[in-house]
């Protein structure tokens, strides 16, 4: 596959039914365009990994794409879990949803272990009840000190999808501003799809920018505006009204159905 492709080709070729797909980005660089392509292509039985699960997660869950959600926080702008997610959890609509709940730092440690291709990573035990309910985290002993620590299973997505400001024609990618979990999620994955605001002849990275070399990027898609309604540092600010309005669409199965029909019609 050439590095620079269109969105339908990239999502279609890289994300198969049943795959483990990470879509990362919190408030900034949220890969909405790629997520909507998953909806249009009717991907099913995905394990969706999204630490900060927001409207994007809500849309994929409501559309029936997801059977397992791996997350560490799930909330819309009002601070509450979004309605499609609650409907799936509470009423199996449109399908039952299994969850795997971690903390943000555990998600980061799972990606880091995946990125280094070791089977697990180590964090310190905080006393939270979460490990009693999640099979990918457990207590072990340090072989040197004998102290108890928490082992977390490596997370290796089949595909990680992120959005970035720009890529060059070889497929090297630049992320400016907060980089979140995206760098580690890309390194952890078997394949990485990056949508970008623009493709340029040569990168001219800003101080502090993170560069993802082409060797860790499978496909690049030019998708200007592809993170709206979230923000893209240096390109656009969040569309707060659109983010708030989602609550009304999500609150109602019928209104959500209309959104879904409209989404499918735009392919």
């Amino acid at each position: 596959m050439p590095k620079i492709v269109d969105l339908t080709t990239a999502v279609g070729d890289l994300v198969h039914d049943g795959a483990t797909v990470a879509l990362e980005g919190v408030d900034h660089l949220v890969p909405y365009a790629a997520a909507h392509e998953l909806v249009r292509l009717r991907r099913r039985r995905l394990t969706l990994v999204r630490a900060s699960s927001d409207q994007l997660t809500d849309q994929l869950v409501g559309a029936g794409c997801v059977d397992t959600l791996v997350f560490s926080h799930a909330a819309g702008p009002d601070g509450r879990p979004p309605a499609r997610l609650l409907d799936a959890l509470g009423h199996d609509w449109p399908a039952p949803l299994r969850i795997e709940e971690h903390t943000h730092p555990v998600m980061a440690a799972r990606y880091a272990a995946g990125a280094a291709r070791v089977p697990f990573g180590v964090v310190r035990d905080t006393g939270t009840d979460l490990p009693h309910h999640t099979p990918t985290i457990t207590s072990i002993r340090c072989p040197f000190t004998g102290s108890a620590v928490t082992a977390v299973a490596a997370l290796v997505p089949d595909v990680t999808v992120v959005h970035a400001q720009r890529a060059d024609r070889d497929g090297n990618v630049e992320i400016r501003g907060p980089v979140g979990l995206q760098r580690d999620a890309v390194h952890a994955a078997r394949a990485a799809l990056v949508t970008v605001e623009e493709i340029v002849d040569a990168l001219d990275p800003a101080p502090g920018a993170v560069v993802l070399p082409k060797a860790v990027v499978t496909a690049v898609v030019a998708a200007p505006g592809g993170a709206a309604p979230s923000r893209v540092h240096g390109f656009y600010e969040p569309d707060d009204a659109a983010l708030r309005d989602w609550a009304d669409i999500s609150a109602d199965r019928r209104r959500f159905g209309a959104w879904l029909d409209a989404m499918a019609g735009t392919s």
Partner: protein
Amino acid sequence: MSVPTAEEIMTFVAARAVRDGQVCLVGHGIPAAAAHLARRLHAPAAVVVHESGAVDVRLRDDDPLTDATVADRALTHVTLGSLYGEWLQAGRVDLGFVGHVPGAQLDRYANIGSSVVGEYDEPTERLPGPGAAAEIAAWAGETVIVVRHRLQAFVEQVDFVTAVGHGTGPLDRALLGLRGRGPVRVVTDLGVLEPDPQTAELVLTAVHPGIDVEQVRAETGWDLQVAPDVRTTPEPTGTELAALRTLRPASTEESP
């Protein structure tokens, strides 16, 4: 200038918890506003680290607090792996904030339940989940919790421990191997609670202007102890309020 909102009072009280020079880890909303307000008022050398990975954000005097200004004024950005591992877990955060989570429970020992109400597998209410609250409460030198004071939320004992505050008493943090002092202050829209040095149980130490102790008791699901010298939160001065409103011109639109 109009009178301060409840959210603004909470922001001032939270800001007063910031000491000069401290490394403060903040998320969106009141915690971020409190830390940057503290830098403008009494703690200019506080190092503000955002949960986005923006390290040492120094807003200029006329900057509003937005994602864009935070990103632009950061000394550097780190990945969340570095933020949580090398900063928080490693003990490099002096003061961590845990922000308000709608529906979350807080108990008399300042433990936080933000995953579920009820049984984990059959919850009566599904809540947003932990974020980094467990690690902030575990590894920061001290923690300030910002939360709305409602009877439903202030429970005798959380149904599910998402984040350990003081466990079941004063020895638990040491037994669990946790670092630092844990929650030292709970800032609500009614007043301030602090753990009793002997028992680690939360005690009411201040009420906000216009709030009386009985109102606070009525919204607390355990037999709330009241400090003998319970204070009334001082009102912000006009200068202080102006400083906050430069930071958060639109804050009155949002719920605390």
